[in-house]
């Protein structure tokens, strides 16, 4: 119709925020709270949503997705909890060491890739470690609507059980904590067999835990529609490689510690994205020519796409070889 053509910008809409609190929770995890710099209320969000935090680290811009874990009913703040990863690419370390109360930062509007199925007759949550964060928001939302839920939360030790004591105290009958160092484990098979029809399960945690829940549920006759998971992948380092972007008509170098998407952005190419973790599908890019091997790491493309050599998700996937030409 072209009533007022506007080019869509990459990523979700942005919100300027001020860091209002930095709360260390244990040796590894710190909560960051934000208020809007313009003093207005935040947009409401649905539990399970994430925001992408923009970090100004010298002349480098880091963009990391984190689950919103504050109460969706509280529009005065957004909060995230960040686990420090000393071996990671530096985003979480930057948050832990550089971000102070009063700092100006930028968040994106919430995007939900891990929503509650509101038809569920019961919601059962399985959390591993820092995977507790989206469930904090889900529990708050369901408490408000008198939803039927329970939480099974596996942590390494009581000292590292982020929000474990708080949750267990507040919802004694619904929260079950399992500590690795006490050889406690989630009794998954028994839990799966006892649930009434219409139950949905949600898992957030390490990849191994997610795979375990999916595989066990399938073996126990659970439909895949009733099993939900979210795992954000952090881009992994790899050998530098060169890429030709034919629409933009430039050739760029992808460094060892940056993703292909980040390299495009560094070179001024406006590439679409939402989650930056291989889950949402926004950055899917067509391969024009390739002589080499793809290192696909996303959850978006299916095996057939991966094998075809015709598509790549530049947020997490890499390439080893001589020539790569992308339609971007």
């Amino acid at each position, binding site marked *: *119709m072209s009533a007022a053509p506007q080019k869509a910008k990459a990523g979700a809409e942005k919100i300027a925020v001020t860091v209002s609190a930095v709360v260390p929770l244990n040796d590894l995890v710190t909560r960051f709270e934000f208020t809007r710099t313009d003093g207005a209320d935040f*947009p409401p969000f*649905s539990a399970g949503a994430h925001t992408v935090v923009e970090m100004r680290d010298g002349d480098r811009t880091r963009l990391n997705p984190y689950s919103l874990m504050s109460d969706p009913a509280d529009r005065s703040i957004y909060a995230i909890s960040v686990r420090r990863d000393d071996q990671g690419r530096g985003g979480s370390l930057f948050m832990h060491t550089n971000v102070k109360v009063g700092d100006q930062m930028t968040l994106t509007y919430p995007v939900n890739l891990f929503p509650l199925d509101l038809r569920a007759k019961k919601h059962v949550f399985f959390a591993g470690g820092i995977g507790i964060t989206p469930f904090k928001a889900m529990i708050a939302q369901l408490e408000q609507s008198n939803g039927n839920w329970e939480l099974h939360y596996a942590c390494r030790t009581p000292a590292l059980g982020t929000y474990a004591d708080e949750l267990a105290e507040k919802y004694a009958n619904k929260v079950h904590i399992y500590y690795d160092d006490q050889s406690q484990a989630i009794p998954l098979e028994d839990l799966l067999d006892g649930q009434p029809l219409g139950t949905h399960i949600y898992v957030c945690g390490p990849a191994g835990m997610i795979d375990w829940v999916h595989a066990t549920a399938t073996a126990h006759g659970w439909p895949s529609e009733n099993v939900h998971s979210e795992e954000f992948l952090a881009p992994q380092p790899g050998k530098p490689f060169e890429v030709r972007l034919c629409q933009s008509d430039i050739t760029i170098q992808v460094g060892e510690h940056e993703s292909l998407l980040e390299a495009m952005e560094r070179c001024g190419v406006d590439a679409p994205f939402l989650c930056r973790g291989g889950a949402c599908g*926004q950055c899917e890019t067509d391969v024009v020519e390739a002589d080499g091997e793809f290192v696909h790491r996303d959850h978006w493309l299916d095996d057939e796409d991966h094998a075809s050599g015709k598509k790549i998700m530049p947020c997490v996937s890499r390439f080893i070889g001589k020539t790569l030409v992308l339609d971007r």
Partner: protein
Amino acid sequence: MTIQFNNETFRDDYSFRNSDWAIKRFPFPFHEDSYMYSVNMEQHRGGPEGSVYEKRFDVDEHYLSEMRDRALVLADDPLRCQSLPHMTLAGWDTLELIMVSKSEDYPDLFELHRDGNRWRWVNKPMGIDQTFTFLDETTLPCGPLEYITRQTQGDFAVLDQRDEMLWMDAGMVTTQADWSLDFDIGMNFFEWHAPVPLAHEMGIFKRALKFLLNVQQGAPARRLNWTMTVNPLLDTSPENYHKWGIQKTTLTPENIGAKQHLRVELQTFFRLPRSNALLFPIRCYLIAFQDIVTVPKWGRRLHRVVRDLPEELATYKGFIANRPMMLDYLGQYDDGLPTSPGVWPDLGTEPPLQK
């Protein structure tokens, strides 16, 4: 500007009329001299001043009369507004979005006063002043979706998003182009579009779905769709087709200019924040052929589009039998001159009819 609301009907004596203002701002859907399906999405972030694209929810001179017509349809058939049980939160999302948008975009017509969850809504044209508790259904006379869409022009489909799919799980549908909410509720995106010819094969719905699944909070989208209706009848429902279908046979060369209407849907898409559902308002604009041809560019172009439309589409849109008569009428307003690109009337620059 202050809108002068018409007192008119969309049934029986059909006293519906477009003012000159409404004709000039009509959302003419053809940007070139031919038409084929396309996803044709763009962002919904305003548009030229006074155009139907300017506000998030356009209010025009037909507002009060359309709301009266909706009330008549609902009194006759309450199944036109339905919401599956899990969609109540999306209903509140819809109410919030519309109340906030209308009170900001039309402060002279609508007011919203919020004190925590205690809200007061003032709709001056309809004479409504309602205080209620947000998220508490017992404080409204009906469900939140029905409440607000009885006060907002256009149909509303509310789509739940699950498993990489959209599901038509709630809606208010009284001005529809021949589809039934009562029949389609609960269907997925491909199922409710199943009767549409050609577009499936063209991959239109796959691409549209991919786009819509990614419509994000704060970044609404829009597109146009169109069909034809004899008489300015808003409620062209399948439910009542056995009553209104016969009107298609009442066209004559003498009355076609007044009776035959182009029916355009301004479809918009909003991600709803609390429920993660997608709101799909479908706003219907009607214009008589005799009013379209007062814009020379539109008269020329409409003739060419109707003439060259593939037979399947003319059949699906329900005017295959009347196409020859439509072409006889529209042909009088096509002098063969080229038309300027784009949808706008271009009254100042396009030449008057040369015959």
